Structure formats: C-alpha cells, structure tokens
C-alpha cells in the first residue's frame, strides 16, 4: 500500500507535526506513513482523509500484488 499524504500535506500547507496533532498520533507515525513503512488502521486512514476533505481511496492506494 502506498499513499499521497506528503502531497496532500504540502497542498494544505501542514507540517508533519500539525497533521499528527489533528489526527492525535505521534509525529513519527506520520513519518512512517509517508515513508510507506506503516499501514494505518482504518480509523487513522479515515481521520487523515477527513483532515484533507477527501476519501480514503484518494490518499491510500491499495495495490493487489
């Protein structure tokens, strides 16, 4: 699974710290997500999508390998 968190974060002019505070996680969780080193729970994916006002599918790309 890959994601576009970094692009959306830049578009909304948010720092990793800002986004982390909005979705109530530690900053390093956002770092791990952006590096594709962690797949979030459905709740966290939903919270992140809500912050950017888009659907989960627009941010997270599920590849069926």
């Amino acid at each position: 699974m890959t994601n576009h968190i970094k692009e959306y974060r830049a578009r909304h002019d948010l720092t990793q710290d800002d986004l982390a505070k909005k979705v109530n996680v530690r900053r390093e969780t956002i770092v791990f997500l952006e590096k594709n080193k962690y797949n979030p729970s459905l709740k966290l994916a939903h919270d992140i999508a809500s912050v950017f006002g888009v659907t989960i599918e627009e941010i997270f790309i599920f590849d069926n390998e």
Partner: protein
Amino acid sequence: MKRAVIALSVSLLVLATTAFWFFKVEESVKGPEVLTFGIIIVLVGFGLYFAYRRFTGAKRGEPAEDELSKKVMQKTAAWSYYISLYMWVFMIWLKDMVTLDTEQVLGAGILSMAVIFFLCWIVIRLRGIRND
C-alpha cells in the same frame, strides 16, 4: 508520560546497581566484566533515550502512545520472546559444554534477553510495520 517515568526510574536504578557492583568488585576488573558493564551501559543509554523521547513528545503535546508505538512494542515483545526461547536452549547447551555457575548462566541469560529486546526494537523500527 507514565512510561517515560518508569523507563527513567528503571534506567537509573540499573545504573546505580551497576555502579555499586563495579565499586564492590574486589579483584581487578577483567574482560568479561568489562563487556558486561559495557552492555549494561548501552542498555541504560537506550532506556534514557527512550525516556527523553517520551518527555520531549509530551512537551510538544503528543500522545504518550499511539497505534504505531503500540504495534512496535507488541511486535518487539513477540519477536524477542521467540528468540529468547532459542537463546535459553543455547544457554542450557553452553552450560554443559563450559563450566559455568548457575548465577553466571542466569546473569548472562537475563542480559541477553535485554539485548535481544533492544535489537528487535531497532530492527522493527528500521523495517517498519506494513501488515502486508
């Protein structure tokens, strides 16, 4: 915050006990003791670093734990448990091969468990958790 205080307290307690042991050793300190002290210092350093990260995170208003940190700890605990089982089998084999006191075997085993936990934590953080 609670975990940071616990990590800090345990690290300082281990450091104080190690220092007490070090100054109590009457004979000159030899290779194995120096190695043991070195490993303990590294582990205490890890504990202090962990506490520092938690304190600075709390200062910035970050939650003490989130889903990633919980998963990292769960995976680290599971990995280190499995590896420790093999380590104890190895220790039993080693006890038959080399003359060692029970005290030495237990001490080495406990220290090895701490080292295994530390290494698993580092590897899991480097690899990440993808759930693929």
